[in-house]
């Protein structure tokens, strides 16, 4: 019998996940996964735990199904659809129950706890980050955990203010835009298209404080001269392209075992121009595939790396009169909270879709299980389908 009542957020999230699964199954030809899986997938890869690497990409800042996985949106993500999804385990229902601001949501992803810090302040997460668990538990050096982040507001994401962890135990953070500003001595209009900062607060570039990557390390660590860096930057079209350029250098020269990349171009949607939002999705799609190719071609990474791609959250639905569709992520509706995740590479079953609900806080404990540390203060649970 038909019902006139409004669907609950749970029902909407489930429906969204089901649609996503069907879209992907029909377009990418993948199978529906079961939770009854062979155990110890990672162990069966033969990669010893000490050699495993993990790369996390946040597909930011949030895209909706109708512009991505729905039939009308698939033209915007050809690389995800044709190249990555067939090789991945795809989770259709990743729910974010936290605050839907990009910094605080990324901090929540990185801690496995729904952080409540001010999204617009330069503050560290309050709970230990995945980088701190990784480095402290496994006694890894600072060079083994890195974050490449788009916005200067992300400069504190590498380590928390937690009393048992915190300073000296986190990840090094590279802010490519900050680096480029330093390399060009703050000038040079040729580079300004690469220096756009937060789209949530477009008039502000936050003051930096924290352990951001210094200019002199450009040469020492990444083996890049300032001139080469500047010359290459001129060939790029967006801040995320600049980030991926730095990521490649980092992978070649430093080869960290835990690498976290936050993409941000899509968040231009806040300016309300649909074409620029779509351009951002297409670029992010291409850049994700570029990173996967780099993983496969770099000897330090090939065959021993698990790649995770997930948005920090979605964007508002067209159906919610309280929002303005794709432009923002303010309503907290099911569409803006329910997103997806793909995992591919070492230890991952290829071409399967899982549509049971999971939370975005489940990522950190899952990384713990893969890399061999305990995310003891995380609120999430390891994802059994990946273990």
């Amino acid at each position, binding site marked *: 019998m038909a019902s006139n009542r409004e669907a609950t957020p749970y029902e909407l999230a489930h429906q969204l996940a089901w649609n996503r699964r069907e879209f992907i199954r029909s377009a990418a030809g993948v199978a529906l996964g079961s939770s009854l899986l062979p155990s110890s997938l990672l162990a069966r890869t033969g990669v010893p735990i000490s050699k495993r690497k993990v790369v996390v990409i946040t597909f930011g800042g949030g895209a909706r199904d109708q512009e991505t996985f729905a039939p009308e949106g698939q033209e915007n993500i050809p690389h995800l659809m044709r190249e990555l999804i067939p090789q991945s385990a795809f989770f259709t229902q990743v729910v974010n129950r936290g605050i839907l601001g990009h910094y605080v949501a990324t901090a929540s992803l990185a801690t496995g706890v729904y952080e409540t810090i001010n999204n617009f302040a330069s503050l560290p997460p309050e709970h230990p980050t995945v980088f701190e668990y990784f480095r402290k538990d496994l006694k890894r050096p600072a060079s083994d955990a890195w974050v490449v982040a788009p916005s200067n507001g992300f400069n504190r994401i590498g380590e928390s203010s937690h009393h048992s962890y915190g300073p000296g135990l986190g990840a090094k953070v590279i802010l490519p835009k900050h680096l480029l500003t330093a390399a060009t001595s703050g000038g040079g209009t040729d580079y300004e*298209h690469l220096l756009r900062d937060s789209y949530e607060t477009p008039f502000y570039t936050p003051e930096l404080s924290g352990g951001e990557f210094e200019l002199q390390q450009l040469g020492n660590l990444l083996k890049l001269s300032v001139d080469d860096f500047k010359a290459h930057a001129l060939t790029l079209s967006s801040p995320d392209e600049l980030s991926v350029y730095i990521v490649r250098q980092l992978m070649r020269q430093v080869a960290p075992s835990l690498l976290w990349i936050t993409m941000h171009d899509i968040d231009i949607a*806040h*300016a*309300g121009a649909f074409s*620029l939002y779509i351009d951002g999705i297409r670029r992010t799609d291409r850049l994700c595939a570029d990173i996967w190719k780099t993983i496969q071609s770099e000897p330090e990474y090939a065959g021993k790396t698990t790649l995770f791609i997930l948005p920090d959250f979605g964007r508002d639905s067209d159906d919610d009169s309280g929002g303005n569709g794709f*432009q923002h992520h303010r309503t907290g509706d099911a569409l803006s909270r329910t997103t997806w995740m793909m995992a591919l590479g070492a230890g991952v079953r290829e071409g399967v879709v899982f549509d049971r609900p999971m939370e975005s806080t489940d990522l950190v404990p899952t990384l713990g299980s893969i890399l061999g540390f305990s995310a003891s203060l995380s609120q999430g649970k390891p994802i059994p389908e990946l273990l």
Partner: protein
Amino acid sequence: MLPSDLKPEQFNGYPPEARKLVAAHVAVLRRLPLSFLPSLLREAIEYDFKFPAERRSLEKELVNLDSLSSDQLKDWLQGFAQIRISSQLERSDWINAPAQFVEQLSSYLWTTHQLDAFRTAALAYAERLRAAVPPEKPPIPRLGITVIGQGVTVNDAPLFRKLRPHGAYFRAVKPENGVQLLLNIAAARAKVHPVPYAHWYIDGGQAAVHDPALTSVSYHALEPVRAALSGRIRAEIDRPGMGPENLRTVMAQLRPGDLGLANSSDAVLDRFQVKMLTEGSGTQIFSTTFAQWTAREALRRAQPLTLLVRFAPRQRQKPMNEMLSASHEVSELDPLGSLVDADMGAYYNWLNLQRLPGAEQSSFLAWFEGHNEALAIGPAIPRGTESNAATSLEQLLNWAS
């Protein structure tokens, strides 16, 4: 301070009409939970500058609240009553600065994981209010017109894809003199049904010649206001201790006079236009965003009978500080990107038109300016159909209505 302590004189800072309105209902305001009341006051404090449709709906809401018994009121607002409020919020000046309170409440709800509960309470209340005080039906069916693609000579991408399932797509529309023809149709409706703020013309560029019977807003006409706003933003950003949240508050408090718009004879429209620029995101820099957001707000607030929106090319994307600068250099335009923006904008205009009472009788036309493509939606138009027959815009509107 809690609502139960309210006294009429505490509203002395409100504009005169708003003060009168609130004073007439202070007894029921005292009985409302603090998680709810400032949202109502945020509307009430703007009463003097609201459109007639908004005024009527606020008045009816207050009368309805007044008519509820204690038990009924408790039942209506039980979801809000369960929301926990911090003592800091309780102490804030929610009487005189209700919008700031609501902004801080929103942040508090996110932080304390109460947003879903608040959302559920708000939806339940809105549903009951709609049932108790049904929205006014329009005196004539509404008409929405959206003109997109100004400045585009060749376009290969399919248009109106989101709208096509809801109406008929025409490939052979005569484009000659189309903008003027549509403006004349809008003006004719305004003359036959001369209701204040009921017939709008919003232009994302320079407004075409139009009848003064239309309420008109254009991005071009607001250029001095945008320049003044950019100057204010730059000055505020440079102030020590200014952060994004403070800036938002400062912008929301700007009035027409602060931006050189004080001499107009229409204070309601002036306030509306300033709000488009100070509260809209991206409206200051992209004309396509301005046109879409202004149409959305005009529909939501003024509930017009006629709305003609014409998109114009926006500036090409550049760094934010450049786009904000008040440079007199001619900006490089992005007509094709703007066409994509406007195509989505047309869909949003239709969606927002559908949210108004009488939606089932309303009609909608989207036209690719200067070209042969158009899309018509209306009670008599078969959905998901296409036509290659030569036709005029006027004929399409006749079919759609």
